[in-house]
């Protein structure tokens, strides 16, 4: 190989090293697959409801929280790069069927980077749709450290429809592990006590603390979700207030 060929190869490899898939990618693929199967009436049934997870931590949390009910989880599938400019968000009001409140940036430095629209609905343990389907808008905000906070705004809430109150602050530690990962005794203990939730499909073992703050405003359901941002209840409540106060 010529020196120039080696130079191109090396440059591409160096550039690519900065790109790493998010730990939610597999969950998003499974959610999208389940959603399309549901819509297209696919008869092939491969993904179990237990792993029928979602874009967004809130729904990830909910899968474990609602195991006893008929509705065992919520699938929210959404594009995350459909909206690239904050000035374009308003253009999606008609598609969504509602006018959400949002901010360009938060006082604590998180600024809008991208967003997209999709749908959310409840599912039973067989992955069948339960209840109504609602339109959803998700907006991602990033700070200077590269940390992300996601704001999801739903036209309705499957949990509320199911008679559950989901508003307020919650946090949960997740351990993302490779598909062939063998649980240690400590993992089993922590999973049983609810200290961690094990999520399979990552290429390496990673532990993340997820936080969410949910509230309702003028008939819409808002959820702020953060991974390893250590915001805490007070800070998330303050961010929610900034959205609520934005007319």
């Amino acid at each position, binding site marked *: 190989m010529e*020196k*120039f*060929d*080696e*130079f*191109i*190869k*090396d*440059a*591409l*490899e*160096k*550039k*690519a*090293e*900065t*790109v*790493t*898939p*998010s730990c939610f*990618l*597999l969950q*998003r*693929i499974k959610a*999208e*697959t389940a959603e*399309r*199967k549901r819509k*297209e009436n*696919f008869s*092939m*049934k*491969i*993904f*179990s409801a237990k*792993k029928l997870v979602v874009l967004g931590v809130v729904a990830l949390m909910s899968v474990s929280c609602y195991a006893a009910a008929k509705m065992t989880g919520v699938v929210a599938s959404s*594009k*995350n*790069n459909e909206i*690239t400019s904050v000035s374009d968000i308003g253009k999606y009001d008609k598609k969504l069927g509602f006018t959400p409140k949002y901010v360009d940036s938060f006082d604590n430095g998180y600024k809008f*980077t*991208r967003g997209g629209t999709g749908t959310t609905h409840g599912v039973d343990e067989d992955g069948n749709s339960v209840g109504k389907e609602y339109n959803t808008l998700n907006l991602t905000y990033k700070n200077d450290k590269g940390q992300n906070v996601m704001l999801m705004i739903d036209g309705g809430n499957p949990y509320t429809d199911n008679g559950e109150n989901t508003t307020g602050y919650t946090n949960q530690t997740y351990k993302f592990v*490779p*598909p*062939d990962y063998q649980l240690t005794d400590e993992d089993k203990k922590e999973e049983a006590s609810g200290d961690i939730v094990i999520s*399979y*499909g*990552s*290429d390496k073992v990673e532990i993340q603390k997820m936080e969410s703050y949910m509230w309702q405003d003028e008939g819409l359901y808002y959820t702020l979700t953060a991974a390893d941002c250590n915001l805490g209840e007070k800070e998330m409540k303050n961010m929610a207030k900034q959205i609520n106060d934005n007319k």
Partner: protein
Amino acid sequence: MLTTEETAALVKQIQNGNEAAFDRLFAEYQLKAVRTAALISGDVSLAEDIVQETFTDCFLNIMALKKPESFKSWFFRSLTRKAWKAIDKKSRLVPVEELYEKADSMLPPVFDSYPSEQRSSYAKLYKAIGRLGKKQRTTIVLYYFNGFSIKEIANATSSLEATVKSRLFSAKKQLKKSLSENIEKMEEPVYGKV
């Protein structure tokens, strides 16, 4: 990366309804897929959507894959098409050149300790790759980053091998032209021993 035989075995397991086999296949392909999508599209934020669509389509249509050993070319053909579609969609919103100028103006941190002349060479190359047409850029990425043969690129891009050779030749010519000053110095150890 899995061998062709190992990949084929996993595909057969998925076709037989084994969910864990899909997880394993995903774990093996995801990194290369996201990086390839980012290099072809020149946009990291687009890459995950491209890969999400590709894996979803592959999974939903995997029963139709009659030759499990051809999964790799089947997968990258799908990824390439989706990347091109994403580029076309985005270029309607932002002029392509501006998009890639922006994407390539920042060098990865690995270059922080490099001499300025060397940094300048890499920056020029990234800019030049960003200015290539999507088909030429895809050819360059698949050839140099993925290590695909001309035949494999022809499969992935649904093109004739002669067309791939032509794209590779003209893309390299354009890249060389944009780096002409640096190329002369390339005979000296500007890029280190290669």
